[in-house]
């Protein structure tokens, strides 16, 4: 059961009603049961066992770390906890990779890993590690109530794809008595619906183009590859931010504020800025628990220490996403982008100041354009099925661009409508024209809405305006949404 399934639209109100009518002291149990029930719908009992195991280990290690005064013993408990969590994650995530290699080496024919699903494991494992680390650093006190701790780990809105919540943010909220709040309820429902719109109307439409190109890369060259890449960049953003909106909307209905995971990442003016805006809970996690310890440990190496820490951090990030060379290269690219920027950024700032363009709007948009394209280049390796496919895309994406632009200009100037139409048809990537027009329309809807949100607070508007917006959203989702079983959230696989 995922957030965009019809069964979830029944699950959520039922859980809420049971939650609402339950005595406050037992509400944690309702949510915990619902969370495990939600996880059980993936028909993989071992996932529940793993969640329980990671919960038990992190709960126990947290208590043991806090109970000890001796620094060495505290550290030992921390490392035991981290080791077990990481071992579980590595075993599950990289079992197919390990199995294929052992099969090759030993001439075996095992296929256990083919059927294993690992939805959510990456996220709650990281959350467990952050909990233990925060106790070790004495930033947080351990949670003694096992039930509430289990709920902190398993809370269903954030279970499958995050956000990765810090103990200090989520645990206090789970302990607060619940009071029905009309505004929180309606804003939660609206946020959920908005996320649903982004997923089923926009992201899944973009997927048609991205999938068409990246599932058959060798059938395309030039502009088609560029469009497929841009489509994927937009798809993954809308898909993941949609999930986050739905998670946050659901959380809000239960009086819980989950962390915002995105902040207009494609308006970033540098890769560092991008990572402050993209998958924020994850980038904060790798910053706090991988980058900072490495960087501070290597601080005597100066910039080289920082650069190396960045490369290793993003390499780990790439490997976290999956055991393929594509993800490794993606992580490495981001590490290299950031590492090199530590060297050239001070000089770049001086140059902009000297040229008096440091406050210029044009510079800002140029930086946004360059950053977006750097991110897209990395996404090529992220999305392509194999490293060879990714290299093919990189080597062939500019083939024929010049002649295409030339033909288009000639066609426009000479009013050769049929030729222009034929050239425009190439942008469709073998999809119907009506789909393309619908997609452009909804991308415009998103742009207009994001501008309106900055100027208008919807709950200050008249009721007819609000209800028109609600009905419009409902109509868009109902009539233009994709609800077949083929579409899944992109980040569910990590």
């Amino acid at each position, binding site marked *: 059961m995922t957030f965009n399934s019809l069964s979830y639209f029944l699950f959520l109100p039922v859980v809420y009603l049971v939650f609402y009518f339950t005595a406050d002291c037992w509400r944690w149990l309702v949510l915990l049961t619902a969370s495990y029930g939600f996880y059980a719908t993936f028909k993989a009992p071992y996932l529940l066992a793993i969640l329980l195991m990671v919960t038990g280990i992190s709960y126990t290690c947290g208590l043991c770390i806090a109970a000890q005064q001796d620094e060495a013993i505290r550290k030992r408990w921390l490392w035991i906890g981290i080791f077990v969590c990481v071992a579980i994650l590595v075993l599950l995530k990289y079992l197919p990779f390990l199995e294929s290699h052992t099969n090759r080496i030993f001439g075996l024919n095992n296929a256990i890993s083919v059927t294993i699903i690992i939805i959510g494991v990456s996220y709650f494992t990281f959350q467990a590690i952050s909990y233990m680390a925060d106790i070790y650093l004495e930033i947080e006190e351990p949670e003694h109530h096992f039930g509430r701790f289990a709920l902190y780990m398993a809370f269903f809105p954030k279970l499958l794809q995050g956000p990765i919540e810090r103990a200090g943010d989520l645990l206090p909220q789970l302990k607060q008595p619940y009071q029905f709040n009309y505004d929180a309820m309606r804003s939660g429902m609206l946020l959920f619906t908005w996320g649903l719109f982004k997923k089923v109307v926009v992201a899944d439409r973009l997927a048609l183009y991205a999938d068409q190109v990246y599932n058959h890369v060798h059938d395309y060259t030039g502009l088609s590859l560029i469009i497929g890449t841009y489509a994927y960049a937009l798809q993954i953003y809308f898909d993941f931010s949609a999930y986050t909106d739905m998670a946050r909307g659901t959380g809000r209905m239960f009086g819980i504020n989950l962390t915002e995971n995105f902040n207009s990442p494609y308006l970033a003016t540098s890769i560092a800025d991008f990572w402050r805006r993209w998958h924020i809970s994850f980038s904060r996690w790798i910053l706090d628990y991988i980058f900072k310890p490495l960087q501070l440990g290597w601080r005597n190496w100066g910039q080289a220490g920082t650069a190396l820490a960045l490369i290793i951090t993003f390499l780990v990030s790439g490997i976290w996403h999956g055991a393929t060379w594509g993800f490794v290269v993606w992580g490495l690219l981001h590490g290299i982008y950031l590492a090199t920027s530590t060297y050239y950024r001070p000089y770049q700032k001086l140059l902009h100041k000297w040229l008096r363009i440091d406050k210029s709007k044009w510079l800002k948009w140029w930086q946004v354009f360059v950053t977006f394209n750097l991110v897209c280049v990395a996404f090529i390796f992220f999305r392509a099925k194999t490293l060879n496919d990714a290299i093919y895309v990189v080597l062939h994406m500019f083939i024929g661009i010049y002649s295409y632009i030339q033909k288009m200009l000639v066609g426009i100037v000479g009013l050769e409508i049929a030729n222009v139409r034929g050239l425009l048809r190439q942008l469709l990537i*073998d999809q119907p024209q009506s789909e393309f027009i619908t997609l452009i329309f909804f991308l415009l809807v998103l742009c207009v809405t994001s501008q309106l949100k900055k100027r208008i607070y919807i709950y200050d508007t008249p009721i007819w305006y609000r209800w028109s917006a609600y009905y419009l959203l409902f109509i868009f989702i109902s009539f233009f949404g994709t*609800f077949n079983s*083929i579409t899944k959230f992109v980040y569910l696989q990590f």
Partner: protein
Amino acid sequence: MNKLIKKIIIFILPIIAYCFLVILIDPFNYFSLFNDISNKVKLKIAYPNNELLWKCAEFKNVPCNNILLGDSRTDAIDVSKIEKLAVEKYYNFAYGGATPSEIVDTFWYAARLAKLNKVYIGINFDAYNKFNCMNRFPEMESIMRNPLLYLVNTSVLRSECYIIKSLLTGRSIVLSNKPTVSRDQFWQDQLEHSRNAINGKYLHPDNLYDNLKKIKTFCQDNKIELTFIVLPTHLDMQERITRFNLTLEHNRFYGDLHGLGKTFNFDYPNNLTQNKNNYEDPYHLKNTDIIINDVWGQSPPSIAQLYLR
């Protein structure tokens, strides 16, 4: 909480009213619960809006053992004339714009609903292309499985509106797809810019061929007579094969078909395909009687090249 529940109820009331209206009017006979609107009206309005949905619902309501599959060229074949010759019931499950992937999925849909006896697949080289990969069928299957998706389908909404308009005004609505340009211009545009236009962008559809082999195996196992019909395109279309150096691929297409089943080939230079007056456009014959007589008639085919496996 009461305020919220009241508002939710008020919000969903129009939605429930709309759903009831859809079930009542039921443009595509999906539910077939009420028969207040005549089928003629629905056929005129709903069918052109979404042929695929119409046919899926129609076949689900009244399955048939003998079917035709294909795109608009096969769709143009008059099934009543076949039934006169063959003295058997036939269902023309072809629809405009059907890609080979959709044809394959339609076959399996039909096979699930009926004990198939004879299957005729209309397929041409211009469609037999890896780039011709659109597939609307999974969405259609979702609709057939889930009534909620039928209620929120845009074709259903459009048809509802036209039917209501027709009932209120008392005038019949005619949806016309006639082109607004001259015949020559339309002819040229179809040759060069239509979705199936032969223009050099071609790759052998390996996946499709594998899927057709699965159909052949299924038909053999279930004693279903499988026949392919390569419908006649005008010579202007056929010449593009040579112009764009696709002769080898063209021969491979026939090789594939011959390995799959009995094939009637009309698509070569002959009296029929040389004459522009026989055609609406480079793809579509004005009159499909010759096809019907050659394929279903008792006498040997007069124009078609027949290949028997």
